[in-house]
């Protein structure tokens, strides 16, 4: 493994990948910092531009956008109390309190250091854990894979939707849309209704941009009368208020380590995501803190806990995706699509078929943290200025990028129609509480599921009891029931203490 890591570093330390990482970090911070644009939107818009470069450059660039975008979200949370995602809500709580006290520099600094520390720890875990897990999962044949994928559908559908039936319905709709076009197993055309354009199924990129990105644009259009907030760093005359000192960082280092651990663990479980990690880590840090009364009123420790856990999810959410082909959240689903487009099929075989590429991507993941630290620290004022641009400059450009991205996929105007149709569908799904990210997961995993199901039935013939002969099958069935049960318990708890929604976060400004 050590040799692979070294060869990964030698592959990544070239002009192309480094330029890709720098571009990704800059784009990610800017997009993340603009209220109303999230990391997922930045990745989907950048994705078509990576089709034409080497996978190492393209994927590392997308991962840099992801990491920097998650961090960028904390800039608008701290400066104008507008968290781009629910996960940044807690950062906004303490960060904006510090901003109001003239200590925006301190809040931004601790947010950056915690984010980078959390991400680095999670990346190291990813590098050390992914390959051994993949070696175990290689033992799985088609029967085990069927149960593994059933487990993935159940877990993601159960945990990620607004309610269990809505989550599972979103997943089923994604599965149904994935079956449009020519069946890869039988060659039959399904649900094409005589339209030859549908024979190849729905083009992935326009559908992805339509379902995940454009509804956010529609949301901004809907809320266009909400006044624009200017991002500005408030500076105290005391230099100590504008930066984080080493003793201050040392005092919160234990919290960062613990929260990063929580974030890494939660990120590795499919379906839970960064919000859960941030809330659990923040709660745990508050419980064990010497000054719990400061939390919510400008606690540096609070920002450190929320940000390190939130960002640790970035690295560890790759573990189930790369080892078991299970995208844990919406960004992982999008990145899985990017891997597939670049000819890399996530799953245990990736470590054997594309060893150099995957370790180069891991090395890029680590190097991105260093670039993020350097670029973000040196360019705070610049990013804040760019992110303050009024939305009538930003969103027309986003629309054109979405159009171009959808067209680039197949150089076909029909794909624009797909984009428009899925934009309306994605927005409609959000309105009725269906989860577009779960829809995408269902869409991506269905071809693998159908293929493995066909192979599994060919193996067992008419002796269906053989499907349950492997211990793997029982393990995944048990895990599915466990996750459904814990999902129901979690929902009961959430119903008692509902967390702030994104809409509420945005309105709280």
């Amino acid at each position, binding site marked *: 493994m050590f040799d692979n890591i070294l060869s990964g570093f030698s592959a990544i330390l070239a002009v192309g990948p480094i330029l890709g990482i720098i571009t990704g970090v800059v784009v990610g911070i800017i997009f993340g910092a603009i209220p109303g644009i999230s990391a997922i939107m930045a990745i989907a818009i950048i994705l078509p531009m990576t089709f034409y470069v080497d996978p190492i450059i393209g994927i590392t660039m997308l991962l840099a956008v992801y990491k920097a975008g998650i961090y960028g979200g904390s800039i608008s949370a701290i400066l104008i109390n507008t968290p781009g995602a629910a996960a940044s809500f807690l950062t906004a709580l303490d960060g904006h309190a510090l901003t109001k006290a003239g200590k925006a520099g301190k809040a931004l600094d601790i947010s950056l250091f915690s984010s980078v520390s959390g991400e680095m720890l999670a990346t190291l875990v990813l590098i050390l854990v992914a390959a051994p897990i993949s070696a175990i999962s290689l033992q799985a044949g088609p029967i085990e894979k069927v149960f593994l994928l059933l487990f993935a559908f159940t877990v993601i559908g159960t945990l990620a939707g607004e309610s269990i*039936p809505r989550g599972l319905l979103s997943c089923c709709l994604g599965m149904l849309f994935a079956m449009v076009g020519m069946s890869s197993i039988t060659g039959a*055309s399904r649900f094409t209704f005589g339209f030859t354009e549908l024979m190849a199924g729905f083009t992935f990129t326009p559908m992805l941009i339509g379902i995940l990105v454009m509804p956010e644009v529609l949301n901004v259009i809907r809320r266009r009368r909400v006044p624009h907030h200017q991002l500005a760093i408030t500076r105290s005359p005391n230099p100590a208020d504008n930066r984080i000192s080493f003793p201050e960082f040392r005092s919160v280092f234990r919290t960062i380590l613990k929260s990063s651990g929580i974030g890494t663990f939660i990120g590795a479980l499919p379906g839970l995501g960064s919000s859960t990690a941030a809330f659990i880590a923040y709660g745990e840090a508050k419980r064990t803190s010497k000054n719990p009364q400061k939390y919510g009123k400008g606690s540096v420790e609070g920002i450190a806990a929320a940000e390190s856990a939130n960002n640790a999810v970035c690295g560890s959410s790759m573990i189930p995706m790369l080892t078991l082909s299970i995208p844990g959240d919406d960004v992982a689903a999008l990145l899985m699509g990017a891997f597939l487009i670049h000819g890399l099929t996530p799953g245990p075989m990736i470590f054997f078929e594309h060893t150099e590429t995957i370790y180069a991507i891991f090395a890029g993941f680590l190097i991105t943290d260093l670039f993020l630290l350097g670029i973000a620290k040196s360019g705070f004022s610049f990013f804040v200025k760019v992110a303050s641009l009024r939305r*009538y400059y930003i969103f027309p450009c986003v629309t054109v990028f979405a159009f171009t991205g959808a067209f680039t996929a197949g150089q076909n105007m029909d794909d624009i129609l797909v984009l*428009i149709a899925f934009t309306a569908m994605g927005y409609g799904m959000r309105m009725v*509480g269906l989860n577009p990210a779960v829809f995408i997961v269902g869409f991506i995993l269905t071809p693998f599921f159908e293929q493995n199901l066909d192979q599994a039935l060919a193996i067992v013939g008419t002796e269906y009891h053989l499907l349950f002969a492997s211990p793997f099958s029982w393990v995944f069935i048990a895990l599915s029931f466990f996750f459904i049960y814990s999902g129901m318990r979690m929902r009961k708890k959430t119903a008692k203490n509902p967390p702030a929604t994104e809409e509420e976060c945005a309105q709280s400004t």
Partner: protein
Amino acid sequence: MDRRKIDVGLSTFLIIIAVIILTNDNLVEGGAETDLGSMFLPRIVAGLIIAFAATIGIQSLKSLLSGAKPEGGEEIITDGFGGIFVYIGIFIGYWLAVPHLGFLITTPIVMLAIAILLGGRNWVPMITISVITPVLIFYGSREFLRVFLPTWTLT
């Protein structure tokens, strides 16, 4: 807007679609014979859709019939929806116009229209961005990505 009413309508619609998938053999054409058959998985998924859609629909219908007021996410805020329809209209117009007028002519008009929709009135920077961005994208795509965006065809 009360989301429970939409739930009932949507559930009914999805159940009808799922029943059609379960009963209609003309939704698949050709293909080889396999153990599974081409419609095995679609029909399993259709069955699950019926189950989940019915659960959602029945819950919402019960809540509506009991006369309970909508809670939390059940109340859909419709302020500003007019803008969404205008935006979708602009996008459809964009899709229809690009093959004929070309990307470089249509895009600045569309960008300007969206900027105005978002309340922009700073004409000089808005027009500058609306012209420069499409030019950069058009030539950038052509030179670096080898993607040829549509050009004027009305000759």
